[in-house]
């Protein structure tokens, strides 16, 4: 599973509120697509128009902090984001991203040296991230096999539908 796209560089402490404000929670509750136009709107105006499929968000520390709002990773995936690389993630955001099939990668160097517009390439299975534009490569600890299986299958609900259980123990029922 290789992800290649343009970098969107964000700072530390990007919260679920930055990604999608809580005020839209009720407005578009029946249609997540209607919320997509508001993704990251107060950080990068018109982000949903500017982003291309496969682009990579590169954040700093505590990416996705704040509420348990799962719409945040879902909407990033919906507008085309292929993966999020950050120095650290808020744990609910991390779980949610894995569960909905959005790769989230903890890295040390790439967040410091990357700029918006750089080309980023991530090999999810081997745990190698490259900033192609800067010629910098970083190896990160690869996912446990089970998390990788969830991501490769496009999320945990897809996995359950396909295999009838969680990857750790396929006897969920």
């Amino acid at each position, binding site marked *: 599973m290789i992800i290649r796209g343009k970098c969107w560089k964000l700072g530390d402490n990007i919260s679920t509120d930055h990604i999608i404000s*809580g005020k839209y929670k*009720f407005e578009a509750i029946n249609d997540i697509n209607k919320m997509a136009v508001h993704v990251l709107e107060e950080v990068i105006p018109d982000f949903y128009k500017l982003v291309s499929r496969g682009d990579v968000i590169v954040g700093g*520390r505590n990416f996705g902090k704040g509420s*348990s*709002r*799962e719409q945040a990773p879902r909407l990033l995936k919906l507008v085309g984001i292929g993966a999020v690389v950050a120095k650290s993630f808020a744990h609910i955001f991390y*779980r*949610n991203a894995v569960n909905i099939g959005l790769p989230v990668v903890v890295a040390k160097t790439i967040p410091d040296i990357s700029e918006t517009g750089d080309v980023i390439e991530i090999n999810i299975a081997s745990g190698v991230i490259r900033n192609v534009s800067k010629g910098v490569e970083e190896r990160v600890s690869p996912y446990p096999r089970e998390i990788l299986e969830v991501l490769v299958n496009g999320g*945990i609900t897809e996995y359950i539908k396909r295999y009838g259980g969680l990857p750790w123990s396929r006897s969920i029922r």
Partner: protein
Amino acid sequence: MALINAIVSKALGKPVSPGDIVVVDIDAVYAQDGTAPLVIDVVEKELGLKKKIAIDKAYFFVDHSSPAPHVAAATVHKEMRRFSKEYGVKLFDVGYGISHQVVVEEGLVRPGMIAVGADSHTPTIGAIGVYATGVGSTDAAIAMMFGKLWLKIPETVKVILYGSLPVGVMSKDIALYLVGEVKTDGMLGKAAEFRGSTLKELSIDSRMTLTNMCTEMSAESAIIPVDDVARRWLVERGYEIFRNIDWNDEEGYVDEIPVEVSKLEPLVAAPPDVDNVKSVDEVSNNEVDQVFIGSCTNGRLEDIEVAARILHNKRVKEGVRCIVAPASRRIYVEALKRGYIDILIEAGCVIAPPTCGPCVGAHMGLLAAGEIAVATTNRNFPGRMGHRESKVYLASPAVAAASAIEGRVADPRKYLS
């Protein structure tokens, strides 16, 4: 090993270590009206489950926008009622109160349980020895339908509280002090376990404020071991320990944070973030438009009691709104019986129904541009309680009540000596 490791080890019948990913049976799972709509979509549309019966430990709470402030919320609530009936999820509708409070006081979570909630403040319930963590809607849906979930065991930081709290200083001040010290990402990837001699003076009400605020340090979980205070609380309510933990308690912690609580003074978290902690004196020039006493952080009986003690025979300052929302119906009834509600109304407060309402900027007291609030809640990001250019000072209920009297951020100690 740390208590959370011990609970999971006991549940699985084999020792686990921080960093391990395990699949566990979930002893309680809940969602609220902000996260439940997506739980419903995941179950019905993504998993395609038709009227499968949920596990009997699955709960829905109508608490964030409750009663419905607009048609969109009413529609969500109606869907929650339909789904609850069809799938057998127990619904706590308008009026019961805030999820984390209700699951504790109704005995739905008990010591030794592993519980998840689709709400970031789920670690609150760790105050009675539950391993609890916040999750998203997909996790909640899977836990509700299959009773299992994957969890990564966090490292635990031991927070040791020494000494006695001075008059007018509450557990909220301990929590604010801690956030100020470790900052909002200080416990990222970790859990907090509270220990120390101060605990014997802290009620379950006070303890829930501590565990609640660990979310603001990015802790995945927070827990307080069952002690005599907790055992007395359980006995008074006829609740039993769910899972007894034999537990070697001094090894396996990643860090220790000692806090001498007798040296603390009344604190606030000034905008724009929870770790911007200052003494009340430093910010006492700030005039206040609204005071809010409530939420899963500080809407409990003890909080309403201290507010009533401070506001007894006093008046909320002209031009200030003081809104008090008990965190649950049980708390509301008890506060009525004890006369606290009378005192608060006579002082000029408005009593709101049990709801998260103002804390999340949903309803029951939003702020206009430029307005300043003192709130007993847990977050003060721009726009949290209303307009982006409103400001929220987070404080204890004692500081909030004193601020309502003086119309500025105020020290409660002179009202309590």
